[in-house]
């Protein structure tokens, strides 16, 4: 439609732009999808609760399952050939993704954006992949660790975030509120350092009080009394037999 940043770029840069976007889709996207949807740990602990909360019950059950199966399809089907297991595919896609990140970092170098001073669609796509990884809740993912090693890519993401997604006044208010709550929670912990000890003592006290009441009211009998009663019974029987 002849609008957008790309049109103002030279044709050669548009060609490079197109090539790098293809590289991203071929090499980075499978590992990205895998980290979010196909890694069992991340899926159950992070992704599914996140999406379930956003879509509400009962739609969440269907939506999360469907997104997982389409991610699995997108990652495994193109590479499904003879003699290759899913674990090998996983290793291959992460290796490819790390190489792709290396290439992106090489291309970016020291520049502000990939093709000079003004951003292109490639910058947007790279931001779309990297920002959820480094700013999102997936911390222990190997891809995130690899990206964090490249300061120029992290700076690129932060630059786009601060320039094009500046925090609104409500966001700043929410941020301040969260920090206040965190400080208060820490303070509470300091006032009651023995919280756990107190809880345990209270529990033991309650239990012993209940046991004492139960014993005194006759609901619970102690073992010795029963044995004495049995001995007496035996003696009576023998006496009756004899007489």
């Amino acid at each position: 439609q002849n609008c957008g940043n790309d049109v103002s770029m030279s044709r050669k840069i548009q060609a490079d732009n197109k090539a790098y976007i293809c590289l991203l889709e071929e090499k980075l996207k499978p590992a990205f999808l895998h980290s979010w949807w196909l890694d069992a740990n991340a899926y159950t602990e992070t992704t599914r609760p996140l999406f379930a909360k956003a879509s509400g019950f009962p739609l969440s059950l269907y939506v999360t399952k469907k997104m997982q199966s389409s991610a699995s399809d997108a990652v495994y089907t193109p590479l499904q050939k003879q003699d290759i297991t899913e674990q090998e595919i996983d290793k291959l896609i992460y290796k490819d993704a790390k190489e792709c990140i290396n290439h992106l970092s090489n291309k970016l170098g020291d520049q502000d954006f990939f093709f000079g001073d003004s951003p292109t669609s490639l910058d947007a796509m790279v931001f779309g992949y990297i920002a959820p990884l480094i700013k999102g809740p997936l911390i222990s993912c190997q891809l995130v660790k690899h990206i964090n090693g490249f300061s120029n890519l992290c700076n690129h993401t932060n630059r786009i975030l601060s320039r094009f997604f500046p925090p609104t006044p409500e966001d700043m208010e929410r941020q301040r509120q969260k920090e206040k709550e965190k400080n208060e929670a820490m303070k509470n912990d300091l006032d009651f350092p023995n919280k756990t000890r107190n809880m345990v003592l209270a529990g033991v006290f309650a239990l012993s009080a209940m046991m004492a009441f139960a014993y005194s009211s006759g609901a619970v009998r102690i073992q010795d009394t029963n044995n004495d009663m049995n001995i007496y019974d035996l003696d009576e029987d023998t006496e009756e037999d004899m007489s």
Partner: protein
Amino acid sequence: MTSLVGNVIQAEIGAPERWPNNVKLYEPYQAEQIILPDHANCLGVRTFLKMCNLPFTRELRINAEEMSPSGSVPFLQAGVFLVAEFDPIVAFVGLRGFQLSQDLSETEKSDLRAYCSMVSRILGNAEKYLSWMMDTIAVEVTQPRVGAVHPWPLNWMIPMMKKFEVKSQLKSLGWANKTLEEVLNEIKSCCQALSERLEQQKYFFGDQPTELDALVFGHLFSLLTIQLPAVDIAADIKEFVNLTEFCQRIESKYFKEKEDD
């Protein structure tokens, strides 16, 4: 053998010999059996090996695809190693010490990787689409060719299975729902990007050929010379004069002794 496993094994063995004497490249039969996507890949690999000046013999086999470790042609047999498809073969050859792109800067190497990715993704998928998803072409050209070398009933079962497999691959990549016009536009935009990159140079990265030149030649030459009913792709590509000249240059330099269809 995947490229990952291949790399590990070669690192351990340490590549004792540079290039064995009896390296063989296995391909399906050229005249009757081979189909468009396979032809492009095979030609790309052959061109790359010629550019590296590495001797090899071509072995044409009916069951080349089944023999291949990854299920795709072409595949290379070098000593005890079997390596299939363009990227792993380039990596394997690189590990043996023959590289076409070692003089490029880091940025240029990244550009090369990106363009290879674009060509194999766009042109490769477009070729698969044209061969298998277009009903006229699939029924008249592709399926008979794939089934020609097998007896009944395999001559219709095997093409059907292959068609199903390719269709599910294209579906997962989002290509299955495209119309013919969209696919032709994709081919055209890819060629435009390549034309912009090439400009008036001899090869894509200066005066020396790289693996990108081999890959582009393989795909473009196949698309230019194939005769398909109902579509005329050659006319679209011929609009980019520098690309057709590029193909002619490479053909005359590396293939002038042999006749290639």
